[in-house]
């Protein structure tokens, strides 16, 4: 199960990064979102993978899931949304002002391979 979980996180991270390295804004934003899912899953798993753990303190409960990573990830999800929103709207603004959706801010909206 651990290997499965880790592999999934890795594949999500790889896909996210590949998209984040693209040259157009929308795939980059999608990539960052995907990357943040991977990171959230990763962070969440640092508390261990608990099956059927209790989420709420009660007398009869057996083992509890680690609450700390959950609290961290909960805010991370919301902040991740804010980040996605900001970057995608920045991308829209750039397209409006510059006329191109290339991340390097190329003014002319035509294919260009940047030198690097």
């Amino acid at each position, binding site marked *: 199960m651990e290997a499965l979980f880790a592999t999934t996180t890795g*594949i999500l991270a790889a896909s996210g990064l590949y998209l984040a390295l*693209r040259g157009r804004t929308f795939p980059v934003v*999608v*990539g960052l979102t995907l990357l943040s899912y991977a990171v959230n899953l990763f962070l969440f798993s640092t508390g261990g993978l608990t099956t*059927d753990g209790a989420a709420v303190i009660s007398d009869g409960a057996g083992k509890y899931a680690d609450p700390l990573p959950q609290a961290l990830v909960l805010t991370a999800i919301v902040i991740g949304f804010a980040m996605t929103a900001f970057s995608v709207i920045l991308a829209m603004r750039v397209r409006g002002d510059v006329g191109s959706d290339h991340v390097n801010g190329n003014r002319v909206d035509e294919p260009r391979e940047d030198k690097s």
Partner: protein
Amino acid sequence: MSLLLIVLLPLLGSLLPLLGSNQRRHQCALLTAVMPLIALLVTLRETPGVLAGDVPRLAFSWVPALGLDLALRLDGLSLLFVLLILGIGLLIILYARHYLAEADNMPRFYAYLMLFMTSMLGIVMADNLILLWMFWELTSLSSFLLIGFWSHQSAARKGARMALAVTGMGGLALLAGFILIGQIVGSFDMQTVLDSRDVILADPRYLPALLLVLLGAFTKSAQFPFQFWLPQAMAAPTPVSAFLHSATMVKAGVFLLARLHPALAGSQEWLYLVSLTGLVTMLFGAYFALIKLDLKTILAYSTVSHLGLITMLFGLNSQMAVVAGIFHILNHATFKAALFMTAGIIDHECGTRDIRKLKGLWRYMPMTTALATITAAAMAGFPLLNGFLSKEMMLAETLETPLLGGLAWLIPALATIGSILAAAYSLRYVRNTFFDGKPRELEKTPHEAPFPMRLPVLVLAIVCIIVGLFPAFIATGLLTAAANAALTMPAPELHLSIWHGFNLPLLMSAIALVGGLMVYVLRQHLFTFHRQFPSRDSLAIFEGAVQRLVRFTQWSIDTLENGSLQRYMLWVVISALVVSGMSLMGIETLKGELAIQEADPLLIVGAAITCFAGLATAFLHRRRLISLIMLSVVGLMASLAFARFSAPDLALTQLAVEVVTVILLMLALFFLPQKTPKESSASRIVRDVLMAAGFGGVVASLNYALLTRPLNSISDYFLEHSVPGGGGHNVVNVILVDFRGFDTLGEITVLCIAGIGIYKLLNRLRLFMPSSDSEGRPWSPDRYPMILASVSQSLLPMALLVSVFIFLRGHNAPGGGFIAGLVTAVALILMYIAHGVEWAQQRLSFQYQPIAVAGVAIAALTGVGSWVFGYPFLTSAFGHFHIPLIGDVELATAMLFDLGVYLTVVGATLMILANLGKVTTSHRPSKQKEKA
């Protein structure tokens, strides 16, 4: 206390001249002189005690964490320098009063001068290395102001900049050296450092520390190869040169050598580095002093030469040599300050300093001639004057040195050559200026300068003579006290006298004077010889180097920061890969000792779907809508994963956020190109795939390694204290609103700021609105689907009720402000989608920005509220509420905080989406008009 006065009075004095005005120059000069005069009197009152062997010290703790104390001391060495600085400083104030022209801003000049005086006093009296360094840098800064005082002249600006660059760079090296010494010794306290010589010399860090300190001292004292800034600094007004470049600023370097002599000297490294640098500088400076044509440049090179002499003496690791060095500091300060002032008088009265034009000035200014002759003779080392004594001591010391072993005779021989050159340039300075025919091509007829301008020179010349005639009576006490401070053991007994009998040093002195005369007579041959060399302008070379440095920096910036986001991303990823890859290689096995849990079929299917959707998002990215749908599948699966692994709060949050994110991205996609053009080259794709695969591999390995290792979590604390300490059974929520409430406050603030930022980004945004999709199919003309409209409307109260329910139970069951806020936001957004922005805005006629801001404010005020009851920020209370008529109710203040979170989430989310939605409508009416 009096120690503090000596430093602070001149500092106060730097403000006083600003009270005066340029018109009333007497008053301005008098105002300036008051404070240093008092400081001098205070010093003189301390003098008998210091000469008797007391070392008054004073310390206030300043920044204890850095080992920085405001600590001052007045030992013999400090005393000698304080007397020099204040004494010559007062003479300079008098001289400058008559030197400065009407157009010069006198108050500003005096203010700079006093600032410089303060920093110089600080250097010599500092009892803490860091404090010393601070004053050291202050001298660099204030000398920059003084050298560049005539800022309308290009030469002054460039000279000042060069002096600042060289001495400032040396200052930074000095700081590094001091920090190393401080680490070796464990303290920056001067006395502790001076007492720890054995520790310092034995430490492997001794050599780097020594090199750095010497770099600082040599740049300041214009030692070879850093001598070039001093002649360029001659663009300064002459009083500045007379003060900075004879008695003070350049002496700071040799002062430092004397000050740290007890701590750093005695090693072979010190012997060779310091004495050879000094020797080379002495010869170099003396040669150029003989060649140059400008009076002040001649004096500048002679200063370089004399500083080299002093440096060499400090380097010889001999006690008597240190005494001789200190003695020469004193003597050089007196005759060189006087000579600079005569050069200033000549410049002032003749309008030129070119030695070729000046001749026979004795007819016009007899007194200046006499004074210049006396002081130049002192510089040449003529008997019965002070320069003779210290120079003879120097020659005697070079005979004793073990330096260079079998070639040790070279040192006295070279020192004698230096003295010959000194005698020659001194003779040239006097004879070519004041005698040897009549002046030619002078712009004005020279006459004697006003007496107050000659008075300081007179005073210094008298000092030269008195010290020369009665050395034992005048100088012994001060010298012994100063040498005691610069030596680890009591200074050797001094026998200062003019006549020591016929001996080798006397012979060398005689050779120097006779040889100087001969060199002077034959100087034309030397000049002819020198003309063969191409002339090198150090200013041009320096400026060229600065320009090259600037160009290199510009080139580096342009290369590194080329505006390509892709490249920045690549470098960030590569660094992350390297760092985490290295640490992964550091662990022995990937799998830890924890037992592996069995995977059930459902989980395998879930993981497969997630992986497929993730990969599809990446591979289909050029078809953006499909990519987005795949992304939403990943989000949904993540939500299920949270639910599967006992995190209901996360599952709810992820689900709600997922909905909002996809709506947002769909809306944004409407305004962006529907497809990504094919533009990445094959090699680029291979590179990115490799990077991504490497990154994914590292992430997966890290995750696996982490999951299979036992966990040492601090969560037990939260589990234990959640109910008794936070009054809530849902630990996640209690952590968010109570234990780590401050973090949450920060996070909702970020959310709110992001919302406001987006609001501003969307302001006046004009975007092209496509009327058809990428395939060319027109968008559906049906504005809003009927079914969705009616269902959403009936769902709204239910959804709001659910969100209130989730909010209220959040403290004890899965839920809370974040989730409730998202649910509310989703319900409201559904109204926008179903009915359009205009419809929704008519009914929801309020702004969302104030809601988000109010949310943050409520959360912050809840935190502040605990101050009122005397608790730290954000301390929560629960169960202590008595509401009249209803009775005791168990309520936590955390609930109020959570309300703030709720409002921020609702406000920010709607601020983002509703404002984005508005962009779609703002164009529509005009579009319809176009159609019509």
